[in-house]
């Protein structure tokens, strides 16, 4: 097994074999999750704290369920509501939590890089559940697992990522992951929502859906992140839907068996036609949610193994022993 990382802060730090290791293990957890009795004890005795500085229902529930199914003691902290309002800094919050000896810390924060900052200050494994516009690694991994199960591979596919790329951490993590796995990537967005210099990351850029979707195996739609916008990126939602919303006609330019993905929560009629979202032959949006739990179980399982190995080695070294 190749995965040796202490934290999961971003796809940027993973190798292709790390990614494969995570996906292979996640496949096993998909099977577990489909049984009636979904319990495992690989995280038994470990404490998992979910610290969400930004509102989230879906991701937090997914992490909570993943931890509970693996037998961890899971605690949710709605940080936005407590200490931050009293003026405590991020690092102090982290140090306070660290003193409670958690083993897995799941963090979401509205500022890019905040999770990296926090990971430097604690001695447990940190999972990035989304930091600002930077990365959202478990989302990219669950997307990869969904694609791999639908297409039988996660290499040599043409993947179109469409919509609000500028404000999307999902797009960044997916771009990095799909690049590492050697796929052909197309970014489709109005120029106001396309980040500067992104063409240098090994992808093709389009501001028109039809040529962008031509021959695509996978169509990933992104949510229009109105809460991150400071106004004036698009003229109106109806014009956006007309030009960049995915409907059956635009999808007809992609391969006939192309799948449609969305990280959720989706704005029906803004980025995605409601009927298309519910079309079980094209849309894998519900599978993505299912894969999310399995991928998060796999990530936490692997990080916990590394954590135990590291603590074991430290204890052995402290006792003056030698690892044989």
């Amino acid at each position: 097994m190749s995965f040796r990382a202490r934290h999961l802060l971003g796809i940027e730090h993973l190798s292709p074999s790390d990614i494969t290791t995570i996906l292979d293990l996640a496949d096993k957890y998909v099977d577990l999750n489909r049984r009636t009795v979904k319990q495992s004890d690989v995280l038994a005795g470990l404490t998992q704290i979910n610290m969400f500085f930004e509102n989230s229902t879906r991701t937090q529930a997914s992490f909570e369920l993943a931890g509970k199914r693996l037998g961890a003691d899971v605690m949710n902290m709605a940080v936005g509501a407590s200490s931050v309002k009293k003026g405590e800094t991020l690092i102090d919050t982290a140090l306070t939590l660290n003193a409670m000896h958690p083993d897995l810390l799941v963090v979401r924060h509205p500022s890019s890089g905040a999770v990296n900052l926090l990971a430097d200050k604690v001695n447990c494994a940190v999972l990035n559940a989304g930091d600002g516009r930077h990365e959202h690694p478990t989302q990219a991994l669950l997307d990869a697992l969904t694609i791999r199960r639908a297409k039988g591979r996660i290499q040599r596919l043409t993947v179109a990522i469409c919509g609000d790329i500028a404000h999307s951490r999902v797009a960044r993590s997916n771009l990095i992951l799909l690049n590492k796995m050697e796929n052909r990537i197309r970014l489709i967005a109005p120029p106001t929502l396309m980040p500067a210099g992104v063409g240098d990351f090994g992808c093709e850029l389009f501001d028109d859906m039809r040529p962008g979707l031509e021959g695509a195996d996978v169509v990933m739609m992104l949510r229009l992140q109105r809460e991150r916008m400071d106004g004036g990126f698009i003229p109106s939602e109806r014009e956006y839907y007309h030009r960049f919303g995915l409907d059956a006609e635009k999808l007809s330019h992609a391969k006939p068996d192309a799948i449609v993905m969305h990280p959720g929560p989706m704005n029906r009629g803004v980025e995605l036609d409601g009927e298309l979202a519910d079309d079980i032959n094209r849309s894998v949006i519900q599978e993505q949610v299912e894969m999310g739990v399995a991928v998060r179980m796999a990530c936490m399982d692997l990080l916990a193994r590394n954590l135990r190995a590291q603590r074991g080695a430290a204890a052995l070294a402290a006792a003056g022993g030698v690892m044989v």
Partner: protein
Amino acid sequence: MTLHFSNARLINPEAGTDDVGSLTIVGGSITALNAPAPEGATVIDCGGDCLAPGIVDWGVKIGEPGERHKESFRSAGLAAAAGGVTTMIVRPDTSPAIDTPEALEFVTRRAAESVVRIRHMAALTKGRAGHEMTEIGFLLDAGAVAFTDVFNVSNDTKALSRALVYARAMGALVVGHPQEMGLSSGASATSGKFASLRGIPAVSNMAERIGLDRDIGLVEMTGARYHADQITTARALPALARAKANGFDVTAGVSIHHLTLNEIDVGDYRTFFKFTPPLRSEEDRLAVVQALADGLIDVVGSFHTPADEESKRLPFEDAAAGAVGLQTLLPAALRLYHAGHISLPALWRALALNPANRLGLPQGRLGVGAPADLVRFDPDAPYILDRATLASKSKNTPFDGCRMEGKVKATYVAGALVFKG
């Protein structure tokens, strides 16, 4: 008291020379170059070290009043002396701002605690808010050498034009921060692939060009004397060159950080590399270094901005911008010399002669009759910088742990030794 420095590599920015010779000072002034040691003089053998005019560092922030825990006149003076800076041109972006003669008198009194010279800039508008001009006349009488709202850029162009035209009538120098704030508000990086990859809100480097174009337009309209505090992008340089070619009274500076660092140095969200304006691409950095060597950019300063640990230990977007620089300005500037970009006399024009000339100060020269403000340094001495050793109260330097070349051996202000390394 007569001092005779022999066997010194004299860096003369005015003459553009870099030759081994001797220099004599009596009292507070330079009295002779390459003359025999006078009777009774204390002879100092420099052993081939460089001897240059002390640095005139334009744009230093000191925490008095309001943030004395970050930096005081005393601590800044010690840092300056250790860095070969003999005159600090201090910013008015204190709390409250230096926008009245009374406030200026207060800081002038407090500045007596510094071992190096201090000259003050005053705010151009009340509270640096960009609407009502300050008492420019009274402030000039109280000793203000220039007027600036520092990094607050007024978008009240009418009020600004009035302040500029009034300043012109008084002969006052106005320092602007060329930036189109409508474009750059909320940004903490320069847009490009690095900022996109890191997901940091970013601004196009055109914001500086657009800001400079507006300011130059106002200079053409009002005839004001204008200095752009920092020109950090390639795209702003042609506009600056045109303004100078058109004969406007315009000069420009740049911070040492924009000359020696680029956006990639931010790495994994290192907040000690957050600046106003943000660090630029390597192409921009090289263009600005070339503009400095060509003399298009006149002044290099540290833009010393003390920040405490708390204001830097935050997510990148929320962290304070700026770095301390009084002690690292000289060795960082020598990187440009060691890289072959610029000669030492040309570098000292930007570090000492040009700022002094622009501000009407007698410093910055190595001529007979000039004040004996000197720095003696070994340009080749290598060391690894440890931020804990800095004299500033704040230790927020981007050069922590970096290999530096160039050590200050001694600093003199008005002939008096204020630092010995």
